[in-house]
């Protein structure tokens, strides 16, 4: 030590990490889209793969939770978008359009699901009902090597997806091909078998280690007016079933549809396509009319309502039906009146009408779409059994909900069973407990970009061709980029760029904190766009 020259980089011997009272931790979060998704899709993850043009991997990631993306991408009510943090910057990511795109890509390219194991378990399961819940459950079990037999009462799988959703929203072949892909995992499907009537429940219990009951809510609710029966008076489900199975009823020139849900909208739009002049009577108010009281607004999706109106359907709000007015064995119309209140004193949906506000709405056909119930006939014994022997899922468990809810419920039931049967499967991922609200993001690092929408929907009231096109390739790429990747590192490198202390190191596939040198300034966490980095105090 005789001269003022120091060896290069010799400061490395001094560990400034000792200065630290807090330290950054890289930690994945569970974004609000996934939190809102009834299927529990890891939306951020599959969008990230799509962003990287890893289309097939994105599809595989998506289908870990939802084996019907082409279907759900079309019909889901996408609560993910309502929760999307991007709304704090501009508008939500168009998740459903991208989900549909991945599903369609899989169909176009013939991608097949893969089993996670080559071995089969000794245990077998039976699934009653091949609707979305049953398919979802069967898919998860089959992927893990559990032999599955799927019993379906009708002559084809799909449940409400097949019988309740019109083709202009969900083309038949899309549904059939996605179901075929699920069945290809080796699932045995027995159609036309109604358990409880066609086959004995006890025999089923002997043959299978567990039974998943996913029979849906297939029994339409009836209007309290006993006269609402007879020729020219249908339930929405029946009407849609006839339309969707290729034998639509003849419709008169005027049709009244009673109800404000998606089934009502579907029925109205089908009737319109069959040539009728359609009026919808909805007990609730229109979208946006009752801020803070979503129960008091029409439950059909806003775009469904918009499209229906665009197709020439009249929607009349806050009105209820007193009775059907008959004439010559056919309905002549309905007597309607203004709604006083929607719910009874127990909080059940039971509109009360103002006396003296009655009017007559002429209609040659009246379609009631005012809700569905579970049909437990012949299955009562199973109802009394408990998991794991018997589990109930889908609308059968929750009452009528959404396809996505059903798929999520199938997944949850499968997870519960698999956690018992298959090593390494857990029902709970820690990441899913970590929220990432918009305030945890640094929005300065995102540029406002317009949401990509498909070209204007063409509302054709005359046929059943699909009316909403998918996004084109360029729009898909632009839209995928809009994902903020809430809570999940996307390797922008801000932490690495900004660290004043060379305490963030880049590795081949990630960044790491070198605690020997980190002084705990917190810049990495603050400048992380997506809130992936947490600062943890070391003071106890």
């Amino acid at each position, binding site marked *: 030590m005789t001269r003022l020259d120091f060896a290069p980089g010799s*400061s*490395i011997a001094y560990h400034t990490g000792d200065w630290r009272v807090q330290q950054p931790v890289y930690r994945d979060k569970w974004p609000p889209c996934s939190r809102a998704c009834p299927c529990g899709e890891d939306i951020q993850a599959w969008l990230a793969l799509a962003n990287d043009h890893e289309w097939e991997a994105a599809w595989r990631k998506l289908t870990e939770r939802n084996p019907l993306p082409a279907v759900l991408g079309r019909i889901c009510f996408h609560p993910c978008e309502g929760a999307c943090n991007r709304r704090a910057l501009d508008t939500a990511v168009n998740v459903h359009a991208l989900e549909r795109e991945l599903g369609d890509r899989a169909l176009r390219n013939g991608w097949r699901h893969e089993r996670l194991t080559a071995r089969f378990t000794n245990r077998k399961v039976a699934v009653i009902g091949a609707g979305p819940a049953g398919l979802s459950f069967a898919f998860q079990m089959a992927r893990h090597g559990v032999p599955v037999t799927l019993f379906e009462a009708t002559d084809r799988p799909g449940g409400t997806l097949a019988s309740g959703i019109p083709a202009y929203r969900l083309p038949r072949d899309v549904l059939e091909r996605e179901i075929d892909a699920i069945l290809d995992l080796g699932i045995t499907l027995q159609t036309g078998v109604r358990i409880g009537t066609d086959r004995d429940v006890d025999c089923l219990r002997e043959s299978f280690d567990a039974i998943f009951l996913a029979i849906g809510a297939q029994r339409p609710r009836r209007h309290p007016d006993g006269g609402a029966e007879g020729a020219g008076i249908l339930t929405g489900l029946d009407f849609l079933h006839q339309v969707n199975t290729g034998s639509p009823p003849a419709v008169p020139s005027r049709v009244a549809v009673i109800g404000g849900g998606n089934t009502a909208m579907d029925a109205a739009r089908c009737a319109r396509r069959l040539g009728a002049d359609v009026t919808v009577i909805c007990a609730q108010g229109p979208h946006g009319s009752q801020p803070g009281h979503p129960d008091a607004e029409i439950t059909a999706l806003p775009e469904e309502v918009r499209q229906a109106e665009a197709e020439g359907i009249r929607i009349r709000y806050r009105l209820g039906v007193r009775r059907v007015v008959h004439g010559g064995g056919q309905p002549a119309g309905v007597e309607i009146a203004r709604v006083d209140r929607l719910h009874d004193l127990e909080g059940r949906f039971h509109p009360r009408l103002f006396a003296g506000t009655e009017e007559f709405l002429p209609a040659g056909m009246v379609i009631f779409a005012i809700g569905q119930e579970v049909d437990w006939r012949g299955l009562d014994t199973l109802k009394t059994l408990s998991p794991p022997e018997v589990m109930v899922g889908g609308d059968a468990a929750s009452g009528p909900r959404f396809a996505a809810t059903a798929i999520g419920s199938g997944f949850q039931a499968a997870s519960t069973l698999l956690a018992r049967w298959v090593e390494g499967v857990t029902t709970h991922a820690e990441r899913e407990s970590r929220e990432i609200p918009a305030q945890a993001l640094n929005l300065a690092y995102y540029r406002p970009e317009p949401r990509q929408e498909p070209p204007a929907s063409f509302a054709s009231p005359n046929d059943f061709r699909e009316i909403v096109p998918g996004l084109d390739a360029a729009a898909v790429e632009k839209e995928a980029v809009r994902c903020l990747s809430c809570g999940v590192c996307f390797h922008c490198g801000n932490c690495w760029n900004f660290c004043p*202390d*060379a305490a963030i190191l880049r590795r081949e596939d990630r960044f790491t904190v070198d605690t020997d040198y980190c002084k705990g300034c917190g810049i990495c966490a603050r400048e992380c766009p997506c809130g992936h980095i947490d600062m943890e105090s070391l003071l106890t």
Partner: protein
Amino acid sequence: MDTRDPFRENVLAAGHRACAGCGEAMAARMVTDLIGSEAIYVAATGCLQVFTTHNAQSAWQVPWIHSVFANAAAVAAGIEAALRARGDNTPVVVQAGDGGTFDIGLQCLSGMIERGHDVLFVCYDNEGYMNTGVQRSGSTPHAVRTTTSPPGRLRAGKRHLKKDVLAIVGAHHLPYAATATVAFFSDLQDKVKKALSIRGPRFLQVLAPCPLGWDHAAERTVEVARLAVETGLFPLVELEYGTPTSVMHLARQRPVEDYLELQGRFRHLFASDRGREEIRHLQALADTHVAHYGLLDPDRPGATEASVAARRHAWGGYARPRREPSS
């Protein structure tokens, strides 16, 4: 040697003793890793020199020399002359603080530029003498509280204005002079790359917030620098031969309060009528910059977008492997 990171040279290695959240350390790491290790670095006395060479330990992994406070530009001129004498094109880079640039080092800087030395002079501007405990410098903005411009019964912080050193440098009609800041990394990256592509004297003024002297939370260093730009108080511009050729356009101008309220050095301004008057003065100064450089005019020739958009898989800005030194 600091060889921990295979993707970054870490010209300025770990183990240096800057304060947590130091904007100058951040700026220097950015600039030097963009320039790389194939260069000779000259330091003026100042925080950067002190915290990087301490107790016989150096954080520099490049040939680096510090002489005295005022002479960095002249030492660099001598190095460049020696390199030129033997036909060696190794880049020469000066790193100085605002004291070593605006004040005590201005004469040597002027001489270096006037003689046309092929040197890149980088000023890390933290707007004060922070190394000696936060005294005002020629770079300290108007109305700032420092230990030598304390607010009191008669005064509201620094009485004078921030020296426009870019204009002074630009008056030498040098090939390239620019302002940048740690907050706008890609802009800084572009400017360093551009500076490296030009021969002759070049000048880069990099705004580098000082959590100690500016009295802001350590984690807000980047945010404060970003706001300095977005309020118009620190325009990001490029001069070529003294003429502005590009400015970073602002989508909208933030009010100066957004910037001031994050920093203790301006806190006294919010506590009195006199202070609020000075806030209006600072707003007027910002507005003058905006008008002078046309910061709100997207159609101004040479307008560049003020974006810090984070790109997926960008992996930061330095994917340059470190070169092993010989023996």
